[in-house]
């Protein structure tokens, strides 16, 4: 192993000594709470009552008796999908267009990146105004101007549009960030390769699918993992804009867990949901790794 060859044998202990504190910190800050949640999920406890062991009751309730839980789970998946399409798709399109631009690249890059540095709370309030119908907000005003009056609606109060409406700001705000990463990757595609392909008569589309995209795939994978983890932890914007409403139309697993813990003071059940989220994340990571491995093998 590399460290052993680089360091004399007696330093192996010192390496371990230096590795130990971060490991302990990680265990205390991440592993221990996860185990604690697992432990708590077998109890009924409201914070001030005596803890009552209920076995698997919380799990049974979650999987069988709780309609909101499944609703929140589906919502979370849709939220994730919308965020991924907006962030990765949008980023790829903008980055590709940027490379063919001769002037003003820096300006456009900066403009696109701007939302990523605005505070979440400000973004949430901004979009509440944009979606508003009474008084009329920007979006509905735009529809009025272009004559699409029938599309006007209170986007955040309509149960059919609210989930997309709370997902969009999250997608919009990080598009610029991923655009920057993908743009940097696209710049690294060797010009000779592209020119050779063009000489051979490749169309722009072929150029993209056969040369550019395969070249940036490693970066694409990284951004996918980043965007997925961000999407799964989505909480603040839906919480601030609608608090999960109307009804449960924009309730995500995270907001639901938060409510179970801090509104209903049902810490046992909230822990059960958090255990589910842990499992969900492990499955997501497993899926991504599985797909990547298959791609690499093929």
């Amino acid at each position, binding site marked *: 192993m590399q460290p052993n060859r680089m360091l004399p044998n007696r330093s192996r202990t010192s390496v371990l000594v230096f590795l130990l504190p971060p490991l302990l910190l990680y265990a205390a800050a991440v592993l221990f709470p996860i185990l604690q949640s697992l432990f708590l999920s077998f109890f009924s406890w409201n914070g001030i009552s005596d803890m009552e062991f209920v076995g698997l009751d919380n799990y049974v309730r979650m999987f069988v008796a709780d309609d909101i839980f499944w609703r929140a789970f589906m919502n979370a998946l849709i939220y994730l999908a919308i965020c991924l399409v907006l962030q990765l798709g949008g980023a790829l399109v903008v980055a590709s267009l940027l490379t063919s631009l001769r002037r003003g690249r820096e300006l456009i890059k900066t403009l696109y990146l701007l939302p990523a540095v605005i505070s979440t709370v400000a973004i949430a309030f901004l979009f509440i105004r944009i979606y508003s119908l009474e008084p009329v907000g920007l979006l509905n005003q735009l529809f009025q101007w272009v004559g699409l009056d029938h599309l006007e609606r209170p986007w955040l109060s309509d149960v059919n549009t609210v989930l997309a409406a709370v997902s969009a700001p999250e997608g919009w705000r990080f598009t610029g960030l991923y655009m920057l990463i993908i743009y940097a990757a696209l710049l690294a595609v060797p010009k000779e390769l592209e020119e050779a392909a063009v000489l051979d008569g490749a169309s722009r589309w072929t150029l993209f699918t056969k040369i550019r995209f395969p070249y940036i795939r490693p970066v694409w994978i990284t951004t996918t993992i980043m965007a997925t*983890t961000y999407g799964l*932890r989505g909480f603040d914007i839906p919480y601030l804009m609608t608090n999960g409403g109307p009804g449960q139309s924009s309730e995500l697993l995270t907001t639901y867990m938060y409510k179970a813990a801090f509104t209903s003071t049902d810490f046992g059940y909230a822990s059960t949901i958090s255990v589910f989220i842990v499992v969900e994340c492990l499955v997501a990571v497993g899926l991504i790794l599985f797909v990547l491995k298959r791609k690499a093998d093929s």
Partner: protein
Amino acid sequence: MKKMLRAAAAAAVTALALTACGGTSSTDPSNVSPTGEIKAREISWLLSRPADGAVINIMKKLAADYAKEHPGFELNLITTPDRPSYIQKLETLAAANKLPELFDTDATPFAQQLAKQGKMMDAEQLLESLGIYGNYRPGALDYQRFDDGSLYMIPFQFELEFIWYNKALLEKAGVAVPTSLDDIPAMCTTLRSAGITPIAIDGQDQWPLERYIAYQPFREAGPEFVQKLKKGEAKFSDPAGQKTVNWMAELGKAKCFQDGFSAQGYSDAQNQFTSGQAAMYNIGTWELPSLATDKLDPSVRNDIDFFTLPTTAGSVTGANEFVSPSGIGMAVNAKTYDPLVSDFLKFALAKYPAEYAATGALSPTTDVETVVPGNATPLYQKALDQANSLGSKQAMPWDTQLDPTTNGRLQQELVLLVQGNISPEQFTETMDKTIAQNAPKFFK
């Protein structure tokens, strides 16, 4: 990233788990006059009131006065005006057994559990021992009481909730002030057809809409309905329950509230009303400074008036009985109650009413007269006068009555009902089921 959020949430729960086993209360909640030496120290009041509001300003001043006689004394005021955040903070501290000397709470089921565990001083005995119990308005104290009549919180305010309306807009649409709650849906339809938003409501904070569902049962079955409902002894499928469910659906069908109300905040709603865009607005006397003084937009100033909660045919409660809350109350922690806390409360509570009334607000006591500010419109005095003719019953806001899970679900389903996304039958079924599931845990 996901892990971090998870870890934070779990860590919070863990922290609670670790600390919950800490000490238990050592003081007898009825031992209101502790003997011993007054040792000045810093005490804290965890509260949920406006940071620059009258209550905080006055208590700061009184604490400073007290500190002059008792060097070393300090009152540390920790306020979280946003109510949901505050409740989370309070519940977390209660779970950790780390409540400060004084803390705010409504007469919620959670607070009742704290009281049962002997964590709060008996406020009735406390006020009696200070000789000021009789000064309080009965309604102000009743608002703070639990269902069994016990009193553990001390009120600092007294408010009356009215339906404010714009005379000019009602006239324009050709509608009169409603004489019955049942008139309101039809009234909304007429206002809408005249192009006027009938009612401006803060949908984001959810409690304003929840007020409306309390009105019909209060008229139909009195204040007892919600007391039974929350324990599962009454149901939404009962006549009084059905009446309010159907009425709420009618309000929605008649488009009583502004479009997209569920995403609009407190100031949005108030601006709609004070800028003359909405005809009605249901709010309490805490907004008198903005609704009944020259701060109000001159273009609507002479058009604004209010009416109290309309009655219904066969109403069991009177026209002079409506929502008259005394605000969030202050509880005294039994564990940290000592001669100093006792002495400070004696000092502060005796001087508070006069100071508070001087700010133009209604005192929870009757021993002082509210000073009407110089810039007030005649409406100000008219609003204050309503306090003198109140009946003995009051409509309790449901958000202080129901268990938190039921309350959360009710707030969500109510929006769907009013928006027409679910039928009254679906609403009834969901809510009765939710209460049956959650009430037993809280009210056993």
